[in-house]
């Protein structure tokens, strides 16, 4: 059994190592895969905040992923066409600067998370799962029929957006950027988990009645977690869109929300590097099984099933020998 702290280092080191090795051997596609895993890990770490610490099973996190994606798509599209975004009296210039796009993505998705969270947190349990799903579907159908930005076809951005001092079109440079962001998000997550807020949130997940009797409002704690969670997933969405240089309503689909949950559980709920492990395994399986057989979904399904039934605590739980910290 491997201590979890060491395992975390191993996972992150492994991810970085794969990308560096691929760069050295000139296999840019492997770097792209590593970047994909990195970005999905950021998105899932966001979800892990709501789901792992706050106990909020959101089947609508694709909303924030998609909003981040569209924040990138719309800003870059307007920069591409040199027409400002018209918001009533306000006209905002498009941009191809990643930091600006990230700020927008985070702002928009936090705002959406605030509204969705306020409404959804009136419910709990299965109802919460379903109301978040409903919001996801609303955004999905809206995006499908929003013809100004491509509707179902989505939006193609021909050149990856820029970051000062980097050539983002170089796979390894873009990977490094995403990897640094992943590390920052992980640091934030672990600080949060140990902070007074994390302590209160953790208690709010387990015994809301207790949290109330010490004078705290569990709903407000959960709402704050949901907003932070949405913001992180939104950032990942912007990166994902930049990786593909493309956004489409499929970023809002409920399957994507499901996949994010899969990533978290696969790796280990409420574990710092659970989402990282989950994303790496998922991308590897997708790539490797997809190459083996046309019917690879069957095998992916079987593997997921085995993990749920026999490896509680996910991959990180399995490897660190510590069973689920909670379920």
């Amino acid at each position, binding site marked *: 059994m491997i201590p979890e702290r060491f395992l975390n280092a191993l996972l992150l080191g492994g991810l970085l190592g794969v990308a560096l090795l691929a760069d050295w051997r000139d296999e840019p596609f492997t770097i792209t*895969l590593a970047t994909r895993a990195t970005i999905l890990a950021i998105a899932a770490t966001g979800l892990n905040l709501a789901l792992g610490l706050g106990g909020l099973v959101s089947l609508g996190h694709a909303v924030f992923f998609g909003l981040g994606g569209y924040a990138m798509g719309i800003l870059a599209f307007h920069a591409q066409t040199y027409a400002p975004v018209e918001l009533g009296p306000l006209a905002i210039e498009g941009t191809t600067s990643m930091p600006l796009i990230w700020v927008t993505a985070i702002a928009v998705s936090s705002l959406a998370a605030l509204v969705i969270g306020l409404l959804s947190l009136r419910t709990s349990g299965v109802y919460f799962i379903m109301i978040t799903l409903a919001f996801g579907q609303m955004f999905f159908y809206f995006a*499908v029929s929003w013809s100004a930005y491509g509707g179902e*076809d989505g939006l193609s951005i021909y050149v990856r957006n820029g970051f000062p001092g980097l050539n983002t079109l170089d796979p390894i440079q873009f990977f490094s950027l995403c990897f640094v962001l992943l590390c920052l998000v992980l640091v934030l997550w672990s600080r949060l988990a140990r902070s007074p807020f994390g302590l209160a949130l953790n208690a709010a997940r387990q015994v809301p009645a207790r949290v109330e009797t010490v004078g705290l409002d569990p709903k407000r704690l959960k709402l704050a977690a949901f907003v932070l969670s949405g913001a992180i997933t939104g950032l990942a969405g912007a990166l994902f869109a930049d990786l593909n240089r493309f956004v489409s309503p499929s970023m809002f689909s409920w399957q994507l929300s499901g996949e994010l949950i899969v990533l978290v559980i696969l790796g280990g709920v409420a574990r710092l590097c659970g989402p990282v492990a989950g994303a790496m395994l998922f991308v590897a399986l997708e790539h490797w099984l997809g190459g083996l057989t046309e019917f690879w979904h069957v095998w992916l399904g079987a593997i997921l099933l085995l993990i749920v039934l026999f490896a509680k605590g996910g991959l990180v739980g399995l490897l660190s020998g510590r069973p689920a910290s909670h379920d």
Partner: protein
Amino acid sequence: MNKLVCAAAALALTVTVAEAATKVGMITTLSGGGAGLGIDVRDGFMLAIKQSGRDDIEVVIEDDQQKPDIAVQLSDKMIQSEKVDVLTGIIWSNLAMAVVPAATGQGVFYLSPNAGPSQLAGAGCSPLYFNVAWQNDNLHEAAGAWANQTGYQNSFILAPNYPAGKDALTGYKRMYEGGLAGELYTELGQTDYAAEIAQIRASGADSVFFFLPGGMGISFLKQYADSGVDLPVIGPAFSFDQGILQAVGAAALGVVNTSQWSKDIDNETNKAFVETFQAEYGRLPSLYASQGFDTANLLISALDKAEPADKEAFQAALEEADFSSTRGDFEFGPNHHPIQDIYAREVIQEGDVFTNKIIGVALEDHADAYAADCKM
């Protein structure tokens, strides 16, 4: 591009062609609900490669799962790792829009065996992009033209509420000269059309035009046939294709659909194609299979003349379209989209099998409406 340069390029290349194999990347949909189309394109394509007997063409095939992000990822892989010379295979317009501009931007040829979004035919056209099937509007335009020829005065038209659906209705209206009894956008992926059929019944239309690809069309036709509304129906070939026609069954009999290909087009290439496809795969070829087959033959014809590494020469070779198409006459317009006849077909039953029969030509030597916007 003039002939002289082209010939010179071809000459120069004969030296190296012997050992250089051409690598083709095929990104298509092989899993999930839309897999039937991708499988047909792949099978048609591979049949042509096999028949050519060439062993210097290597085809790498990957499944895009009908997801744009996967398609982009695969195209990155094929371009960056596999170093393919030519990409092909994408079925869906939204996936094509995600992949094609970036691929041609990186200097890779793309031959489209199915999708033909208007952006790529107009302002977004590229010298490296060739569409071997149709521009998305073509079959709908033909349906509009056929409606005129038949004398329809008052059509009810419907399509899903997404860009291709809007293009479809626009395409129909571009050619159609009569009035409209109604115009409806349905939900994407909708399975029940009772409400729409009731509106058709109440509208006083004399004909119905619909574009509902895949399962949507099957549902619509079955429900329409059962509703007691007996207005003539016209649509593009997608809902009457060999692959899904068996699932629609008798409900489709007599429906007119427009297509640039049909298994009874009378030419040697097509006859041989239908026969060998059936022998090889044990089923009748579909529209998509014919498009895959034609795409491969176009590629082979160009490879006979030039190497993809010499972009100008290869582009010129592709532009010539010097292959015998299953559709008979075939040539490219200035925007690298087909100029071709589009037929009206009727669904008939041959023994146990439902299939199509040509009843006339809807549009002759038809090009698309966007060519003028293309500046290459």
